[in-house]
Structures are given as structure tokens and as C-alpha cells.
């Protein structure tokens, strides 16, 4: 196993009787990487996560987390990996700090270290002033952050977050994504699952698109965009100047120029041609009002991919997503 690989799954499979929940999936997660498991509910994301943690038996295949086999050495894995389950729960009658104290005791931290870690983690998750409040009074967003505080307290090398943004308002989502980015900056790898494609698109380095227990696509969002949508880059320009479309069409790499409105043009290119386009407009003494590149949207990739692939099992997955 590569030094910079923290999770490596090969042909991972989980079947309940004849029903196959996860079907021979393979992926790797690197150190400090944010990896997204994306797909509709019931596509096998949570089951995959539980196998990584050794919380459910592996039917077939191999998995390696930080050099340990979760099936044989679950304690070693669970000591180093933090897990935020889908709809995380806490003991409502205990305070936030007491909930973390219980977990810290289970991990085996001694008293002084325990108190220090708990105070630090709560502060960093923005719950410092709520340490002595009962969790029963917490909102969903606060519970999620308490779950993240637990992972921070644990000092985990990998944070596994199952549907961390579901049910959160936009403000709470933004805060949560901020904490996830901070994990990355500290060298903690993050594996997150979600069915809300556009929300997690911005934080993930790489994603795996799940469908009916299989990984349909894997890679960075822009890679997938080029692979599936084919078009590569789409650059929108709003500028005036006679004959601008013809001159823009001469830029190397531009395949097509499209008029989308008065003074509005759309370039289809195989690379990011923004600098050249800007230079052309300026060279013509035109006035440049807008210049932007469209990031391929995960949702577009997802829908496009499953419409274009006439595979029966994948179609089923797309129907679930609808």
C-alpha cells in the first residue's frame, strides 16, 4: 500500500442473502483528500462505510484502512477513524461535554488529556459556549457539529461523514463545509457520502458516483465532466465589438462559438480559454462586461451519464434518484 493512501478497497462486496447491496467496488482515498461517495439513497454508500469501520461483515473483497484490516483489527481502525453517522444521535439528558466525556472514556483518554481535548474540540466546532447545555436543546445543525467535535477530539486521521449536510439549512451547511475544509488543511482525510450532489461538489477533491451498489464513475468533478459531457470547458462572454464571434473562433482549442443573446457569446473549448478570449476583446477595443467558465455540474454529469448508459441496473439507479 502506498504511503499516501489511507483507504484502499478492492472488489468490496456486501450481500444480504441473494440481494447484493455493494457489488465489487474498488477505490482509494489519499492522505488529506476529500473523497465523496455520491449517489441516491439505497445505492450502498452507508453499507460501504460500515464495512470500512468493521461494523458489518464483508462478504467478499479486501479493504485496508491505514494499514489495518477492519474485519480483523476493528479496534485499531476505530481508534484512528472518526465516524459521523447519518442522523447522528446523542444522549439528550447529558450535556454536550458529558456526551464527549463518555466517548473519550471509551477511547481511553486520561482525565487531564480528556478535559483538554474536549474543551478544544468544542471550541473548534463552535460549541464552546454550549458545553454545559443539554444536547436535548440542540438543533440538528448543532448536533452535527457536536458529531464533528467528537471526531476532532478523537484526533482521527480519517473522518468518515455519512450524509453530513442532509437536513441542514444553507447557513449550517456552509459552516459544516467549512469544518470539513479545515480537516483537509490539517492533513485529515475525509470520506463523505451524500445524495445532494451540488452541495458537496464544491468540497470534494474526487468523487465516486454510486448506482445500485456499484461505482459508476470515479474521478475529480472536472474530469468526470469532460469524460461524460464530452464538451470540456464552456466559457461565457458578455462583450460588444463587431466580428467578435469570428475572431474568438480562431483561438486555438475553441471548437464552437454560440450566440446566446445580444452581446452574449458562449465558447465551447477543450481547455480554459478565458485569458485568450479576454485578450481578443481588449485587442478589438471592445468592452468586456462578463467572462466566466462553467464548472461542469455533478448533477448534469449524473443525469447525462445514466441517460446515456442503457444498462438495466444503472437505469434502476437513475430512477431511484428521481
Amino acid at each position, binding site marked *: 500500500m502506498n504511503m499516501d493512501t489511507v483507504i484502499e478497497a478492492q472488489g468490496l462486496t456486501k450481500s444480504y442473502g441473494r440481494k447484493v447491496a455493494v457489488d465489487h467496488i474498488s477505490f482509494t482515498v489519499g492522505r488529506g483528500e476529500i473523497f465523496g461517495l455520491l449517489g441516491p439513497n439505497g445505492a450502498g454508500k*452507508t*453499507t460501504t462505510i*460500515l464495512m470500512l*469501520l468493521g*461494523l*458489518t461483515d464483508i462478504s467478499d473483497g479486501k479493504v485496508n484502512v491505514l494499514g489495518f484490516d477492519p*474485519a*480483523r*483489527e*476493528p*479496534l*485499531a481502525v*476505530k*481508534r484512528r*477513524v*472518526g*465516524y*459521523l*453517522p447519518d*442522523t*447522528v*444521535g*446523542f*444522549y*439528550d*439528558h447529558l450535556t454536550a461535554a458529558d456526551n464527549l466525556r*463518555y*466517548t473519550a*472514556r*471509551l*477511547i*481511553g483518554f486520561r482525565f487531564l488529556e480528556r478535559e483538554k481535548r474536549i474543551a478544544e474540540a468544542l471550541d473548534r466546532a463552535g460549541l464552546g459556549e454550549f458545553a454545559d447545555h443539554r444536547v436535548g436543546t440542540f438543533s440538528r445543525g448543532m448536533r452535527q457539529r457536536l*458529531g464533528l467535535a*467528537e471526531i476532532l477530539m478523537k484526533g482521527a486521521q480519517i473522518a468518515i461523514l455519512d450524509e453530513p449536510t442532509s437536513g441542514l439549512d444553507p447557513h449550517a451547511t456552509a459552516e459544516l463545509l467549512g469544518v470539513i475544509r479545515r480537516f483537509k488543511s490539517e492533513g485529515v482525510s475525509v470520506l463523505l457520502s451524500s445524495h445532494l450532489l451540488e452541495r458537496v461538489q464544491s468540497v470534494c477533491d474526487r468523487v465516486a458516483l454510486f448506482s445500485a451498489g456499484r461505482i459508476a464513475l470515479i474521478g475529480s468533478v472536472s474530469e468526470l465532466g469532460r469524460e461524460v459531457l464530452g464538451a470540456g470547458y464552456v466559457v461565457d462572454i458578455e462583450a460588444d465589438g463587431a466580428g467578435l464571434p469570428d475572431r474568438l473562433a480562431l483561438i486555438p482549442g475553441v471548437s464552437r462559438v454560440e450566440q446566446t443573446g445580444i452581446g452574449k457569446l458562449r465558447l465551447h473549448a477543450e481547455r480554459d480559454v478565458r485569458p485568450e478570449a479576454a485578450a481578443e476583446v481588449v485587442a478589438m477595443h471592445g468592452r468586456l462586461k462578463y467572462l466566466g467558465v462553467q464548472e461542469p455540474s455533478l448533477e448534469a454529469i449524473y443525469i447525462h451519464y445514466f441517460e446515456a448508459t442503457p444498462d438495466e441496473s444503472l437505469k434502476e439507479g437513475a430512477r431511484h434518484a428521481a
Partner: protein
Amino acid sequence: MRREGSAFNGLGVVMLKELADHLTSIRFIILEFIVMLIAVGTVWVASQDIKQNVAEDPFLFLRFFSGSGQQQLFSFITWLTLLVPLMAIGLGFDSVNGEHNRHTLSRILSQPIYRDALLFGKFLGALLTLAIALVVLWLLVIGLGLLFIGIPPGGEEIARAFVFLLVTIGYAGVWLALALLFSALFRSAATAALVTLGLWLFLSFVWPILSNVVALVIVPPDPRYTALGLQTPGTLVLQQFLARLSPSTLFGEIVVALLDPTTRALGPIYLSQLQGAVLGAPLPLGASVLIAWPQIVGLLATTILLFVIGYVVFQRQEVRA
């Protein structure tokens, strides 16, 4: 395939947390309050009785536990037999499904502990809670007894009462293990509570009667014995065997042997066995324990069996909701 690390990692932590939770729960405080009231009430009734008929009873003090003569209905032991299972079921019915329903199970199990520690810790935590409650109750009865009649108990009496206390804790363990099993089996806490209570009612009140009927059907009474006004031995043996499948019967028999030192046998006795016996003479404690030994072992075995079944169910369960 051997797993790494100890299955008891975190056991103490889980146990202490459960203990703290139980001791501060409203549920427990109410149950404890009811039990206290009953202790005071029954000891008072027993002391009135003892004051009126001061027979030359060498085991006067045990009367506080077992009750005496006419007031059997108001005896401490009658109420304890009723309340100990209720307390145990009250503490255990939502232990596993409660964690499921609060969505805390997967979070706790993602910490470096095995499921074994969680389940066993929950069992021990609840059992320790019950033990604390029962010890307090036991001391209360002895203290009140001293207060009401002013005669100190003898060493033999205290020893018998102490063994009785241990057996009561064991009896609580049976119902606790049963409640834990159903809490792992049923996802809804209400279902688990109702099923456990139903089974308790059946085993404690319906089964003793039913076992009698079943025995009569399987081994009909022999007219030769009936003519002599005796019970047919075969029927009696079968009836006892069936009745003893219920932990309540076992507990009742142990209590009789422990709190009434003149008990010589639990079940049918042959005339030959009585040869040389001084009827009505008390047995030493060791002999009384020996009489009830099969029942004591039976209670322990039932607890272990129920716990193991619950353990297997819990181990095979999927963590996700």
C-alpha cells in the same frame, strides 16, 4: 480468525455510565420510592403480628421478610416477588433498542470497543443498580425491624437474610437478562416492554396453574392414591417439573428453604426420608442452602442462558437503522 484486543475494552466505562443514568432516572426513583413504602408497610404489619403472638420463635427476625401466619398477603416477600421483576424489566426493556432509536448505537460502536462490552456493560450496570436498591431495602427492613420490636437478630438469622439478599439479586438478574434479550429483539421499546411484562405475568401467575392442569392431563391421577386422599406421585413429579420451568417458582422455593429453617424438602417427601428426623426442628444454614441448591443453580443458569441468547441476537444485528 482471532480478533485483536480485549472484548472487555470499555466495559467499566459503559457500566458506570449505565449506573449513573439509572440512578438519576425518574423511572428508577419512582420504583425505589414504591419499594420503600412497601418495606415500611410490610415490616409494620409483621411487627404488629409478632407483638401479638410472641411465640418462642428462634428465628423471629426472619418473620419480617417472610411474613407470618395470617398476614401472608402483606408479607415483604410477596411484594418483593412482584416488584423485583418489575424493577428489572423497567431498567432493561429499552437498553438496546433505546440506543437504536436515539441513533447513538453506530456512534458508540465506532469507538474502539466491541459490542460485547456494550451489552455486558449494560447488563452489569443495571444489575448493580438493582443490587444497590435491594441492599438499601434489606438494610431498611432490618433497621425498621430493630426499631419496631427491639430484639437484635442472631448471627444465623443475619446469615440467612444475607443469602436471601444474594438470591434476590440473582432473581432480578433473570428478568433483567430477559428484558435485555427482548430489547435486542424488538426495535420498538414499547413492544419489548409489553412482551417482557406479558411473559413475566404468564410465568409467574398463569404457568403455576397451567402446569397443574397439564400434569393432570398427561399423567391422570391413579384412583388407588385418590382413594387414600393422596396425590399420585407421577402427577406430582411432573407438575413440579413443569412449574419449576418458571423462575418465579424457583425463587419461591428458595425463599421457603432459606427463610423457614424447618423446611426439609422442596417437593414430595417419602416416609422413609423422615426416619429419625425431629419434625419442626430447624436445619443449619448450610443444609437449607443445600436443599435449595438446584433451584439456585437453575436461576443462575437461566440468567446466563437468556443473556447468551440476547448476546447472539445483538452480535448478528445490523448497526444501521
